[in-house]
């Protein structure tokens, strides 16, 4: 009978819901994470999670935190704010970690009131939203690198430094989402300050495939540079292809999430000249000892992994920030609490990350540093087009 069967199923399900006994010891520091391993952000979530697992194992192996062992606990949050909040609360209840990591801007905003009033743990996230980099409203949150506004600042700075005789003309091409609109107001202001003419602003849906009318608008305004924001891949390749077909001479630029190798893979030869800002060095760069150490560890533990995308580097770097903050707290002989960790974060100045990124100084809970890279289609790689550029 179905009734009895369903009761049995319910009982089995209930029994799996019982949490395992909580671990807890003086010499253990727990890092909890709600990772978007499924859902539409899974392309990055899987790498972020792998990076945290690897970095925590690496840090324990190398003894990066003296006398303490790091423990990493994670759960899938599916890039859904409701589920992510449930994940956050469950991990807090079960493990009481001192540090948490979250998937999205949405979670960062939704958890902020309780993070400040109750949980008080250091909170890093996959988001580069300017809104989370505000110690007044988000005293425990930080952004693992430059915010989207900073990234626009870096690109505009690069354009201003490399301009010819005429005033450069720029177009912003962004999606109709929080991710897309985040840096636009700042970008307008900064462009005006740097003497750059903003000739067009084009807003589309994410993944919009028919881009003819948008490209015609670009043709009409003839910008020297087009900066994409709020996309991961589509419609960037479509726009670049259509622009080449229309004979446009504009250079196309992207920010962090549209600066992975997949853009070059997708566009092939058409990616020639595509540029953008990355907050971190690439996995294959030889000049950075921090990246070399990451590669060496990967070769040892995951010999089959020949490439790690930028999201992996982001996760690894966030782990480095956690360890740096913990070590500063321990050096001051203070307990590892969210308040002390947040204060330690504020004290990070000109920190050498071994070339994983530039020298890191946390101002307003963000590190305003990034570098402009250019696609090399022969090698299928991005190569540095500038040194590390610092913005406030």
């Amino acid at each position, binding site marked *: 009978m179905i009734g*009895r069967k369903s009761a049995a199923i319910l009982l089995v399900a209930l029994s*799996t*819901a019982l949490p395992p006994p909580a671990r807890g010891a003086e010499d253990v520091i727990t890092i909890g994470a709600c990772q978007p391993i*499924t859902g539409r952000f899974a392309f990055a979530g899987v790498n972020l999670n792998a990076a945290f697992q690897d970095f925590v194992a690496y840090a324990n192996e190398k003894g990066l935190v003296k006398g303490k062992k790091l423990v990493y606990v994670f759960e899938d949050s599916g890039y859904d704010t409701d589920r992510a*909040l449930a994940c956050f*609360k469950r991990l807090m209840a079960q493990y009481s970690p001192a540090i948490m990591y979250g998937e999205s801007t949405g979670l960062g905003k*939704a958890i902020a009131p309780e993070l400040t*009033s*109750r949980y008080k743990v250091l909170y890093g996230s996959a988001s580069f939203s300017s809104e989370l980099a505000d110690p007044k409203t988000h005293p425990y949150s930080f952004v693992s690198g430059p915010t989207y506004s900073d990234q626009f600042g870096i690109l505009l700075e690069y354009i201003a430094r490399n301009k010819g005789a005429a005033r450069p003309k720029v177009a912003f091409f962004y999606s109709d989402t*929080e991710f897309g609109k985040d840096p636009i107001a700042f970008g307008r202001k900064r462009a005006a300050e740097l003497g750059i003419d903003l000739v067009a602003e084009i807003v589309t849906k994410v993944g919009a495939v028919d881009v003819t009318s948008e490209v015609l608008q670009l043709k009409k305004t003839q910008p020297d540079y087009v900066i994409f924001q709020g996309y991961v891949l589509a419609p960037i390749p479509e726009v670049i292809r259509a622009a080449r077909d229309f004979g446009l001479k504009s250079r196309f630029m992207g920010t962090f999430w549209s600066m992975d190798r997949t853009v070059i893979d997708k566009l092939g030869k058409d990616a020639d000249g595509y540029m953008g800002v990355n907050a971190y060095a690439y996995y294959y760069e030889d000049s950075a000892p921090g990246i070399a150490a990451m590669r060496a560890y990967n070769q040892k533990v995951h010999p089959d992994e020949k490439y790690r995308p930028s999201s992996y580097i982001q996760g690894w770097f966030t782990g480095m920030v956690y360890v740096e903050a913990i070590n500063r707290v321990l050096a001051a002989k203070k307990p590892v609490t969210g308040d002390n960790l947040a204060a330690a974060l504020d004290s990070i100045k000109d920190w050498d990350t071994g070339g994983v990124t530039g020298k890191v100084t946390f101002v307003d809970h963000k590190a305003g540093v990034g570098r402009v890279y250019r696609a090399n289609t022969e090698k299928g790689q991005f190569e540095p087009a500038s040194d590390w550029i610092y913005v406030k």
Partner: protein
Amino acid sequence: MIIGNYKQTYASDEAVFRTPTVRWWMAALGIAVIAFPFVAGDYLLYLANLIGVLALAALGLNVLIGFTGQVSLGHAAFMGVGAYATAILATRLGAPFWISVPAGGLAACGAGMVVGVPSLRIKGLYLAIATVAAQVIFEWVFTNWTPVTGGIRGINVPPARILGVPLADDLRLYFLIQGVVAVHYLLASNLRRSRWGRAFVAVRDRDIAAEIVGVNIFQTKILAFMVSSYYAGVAGGLWVYFMKVVTPENFPLSLSIQYLAIVVVGGLGSIPGTILGTVFMTLVPEWLKLGTGLAGAAWPDAGSYLFPLRDVAFGSLIVVFLIFEPHGLIEMWNRLKRFFALWPFEK
């Protein structure tokens, strides 16, 4: 063992809870609901609140789809209208929650009235597409009417207050949310037995026959839309105080589809079924997550692969059980009740 249910008065015939056994069980349920937050941790409390808010919105959709037979794929948008109206009243005018939440419901009710108008001329899939249009339009308005909605960044909302006490945590909010849900649950149960409720069902079963017996179809359909979106609006208002922030990305089309799934899985036209459907749709993914989490702990390398399997398992579970129990969870529940009503004397 109960062998019959003899009623001597009209009042007992009209009662919502008809037998002493039911009343005892409802009292026990009431006590359990009141005691729950004092024994549950943060995580379970959060889930209980989430279920409360989702159930309230789903109840509204069940009035529209289950009672009246009008398909809507714009339910999340109505919830959004309620959420924004509540947030705007709470932040701009400093309105207390007992004004802003019902006002959110009324705002959504107005929106539902407008969106319901095409239902007179179109039915079934055509109406579903018309409501998708409403969903898209409202999402666009939330995103682009920046001076009012705060645009893409949305609105941060201060906690609700009762007599100056802020309902900032899940424990305090629990009583507000479950209280509102209980009241609306009773309203929906009674609505079904009223003249209007019977008119809804008549329109669902055969609209021409309903019109012949004197039901004003247009009024009835519009009213169903209004009631449905009022529920969604109130749920949206509670949601705002629960999440403390509202952004356009909170009310996507996928949420509308989730509500549809809740109503279908729970049992079309059944009020308790809606609650069961919400519990199922919220808790089963969480349990599966815990299950895959434990499996992932046993095989750390497999963790990343197990998580996506959870969605596959959840999807399959819904399909399997719709095949075996097309009348929804409530039918399973009723079978279980019938089994115990005769136990231990059944074969």
